[in-house]
């Protein structure tokens, strides 16, 4: 191998410790006798490898990235129509209303309202019943009315009916 071949290997396998035993022996022999290639190997290591190997790992805001990823996953998992804000609100409202606590509270309120309506109806019916005239009074009134109309139809004038005013009597 000439110096160019050796330098190609120095830049790759030699610097990275990847070369197999036979190749390594050959390179070591060449470097032992070639000052220029030895200098090249040292320069290549210093200028193209060491700085990168010494680079410290950077750290990003891992918590913020995770929150963004989580939000994106949850967004993608939701049905497409939920991306509409109104539909999203309605669905959240439905979910909130259908929780067991809310359902139980609604049932209790409905029962209380039914009992109140029933009670009110009873009180109202009683009130109406008190305002109605008793059946006996109605019968008496009906009888009196009947008698009065019967007398009128027979031509018998009552005391009130037989006398007019003084002027009427004069002309009659």
């Amino acid at each position, binding site marked *: 191998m000439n110096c160019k071949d050796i330098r*190609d290997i120095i*830049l*790759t*396998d030699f*610097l*990275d410790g*990847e070369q197999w035993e036979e190749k390594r022996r050959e390179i070591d022999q060449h470097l032992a006798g070639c000052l220029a290639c030895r200098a090249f190997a040292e*320069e*290549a290591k210093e*200028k*193209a*490898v060491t*700085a*990168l*190997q*010494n*680079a*410290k*790992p*950077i*750290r*990003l*805001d*891992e918590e*913020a*990235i*995770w929150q*963004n*990823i*989580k939000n*994106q*996953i949850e967004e993608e998992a939701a049905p497409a129509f939920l991306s509409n804000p109104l539909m999203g609100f309605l669905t959240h409202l439905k979910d909130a209303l259908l929780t067991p606590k809310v359902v139980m509270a609604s049932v209790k309120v409905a029962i209380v309202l039914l009992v109140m309506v029933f009670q009110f109806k009873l009180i109202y019916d009683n009130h109406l019943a008190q305002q109605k005239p008793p059946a006996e009074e109605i019968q008496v009134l009906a009888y009196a009315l009947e008698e009065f109309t019967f007398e009128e139809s027979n031509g018998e004038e009552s005391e009130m009916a037989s006398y007019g005013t003084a002027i009427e009597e004069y002309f009659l």
Partner: protein
Amino acid sequence: MVELAQEIIRQAQAGDLRAFEQIYRTHVGFVSNVVYRVVGNMEDAQEVTQDVFMNIYRKLNNFRFESSLKTWVYRISVNCAINHIKRTGKHKNTVEYADVFAAQGADSVRESMHQMDNEKLVSQLLAGLSPEQRAVIVLRSIEGLSYHEIAQTLKIPINTVRSRIKRAREAMLALRQEVVKNEL
């Protein structure tokens, strides 16, 4: 980094978010490091790291345990970072040194200066490479993967790995010589 138990991966494949969070916590360190070194700035690195894990989440059911999860995650990270560079046209590194050292927490002013110099140099070296060369150099010199692992990760022949590394190092040496010439 500890390899995750297959059971965790299977749970995540079944949609268990807690299991996926474990995958995230185990891999986020090297993913963000690789992505940052390839894209070259913190803001883009954050965005691409997020994309990497969303890709992992969406494609997790395609993972058949034929390679290690780590290799698969490396592949997605490198692909996302290279695609980002090509999409945005940001081929040059624009490293915010202050951010890098704030995150690393240097022990002393002297060490901090040394780190800053080294970081500046790393940034300059990587900036002169193509995205593909940058990816193999990051996997080899920063992450310490073997040629065989890089070939598996990027799904390329091992001789392609070798030739990319050689060209990348030639480019880095040329850059350093150019810098020395300019300083003189």
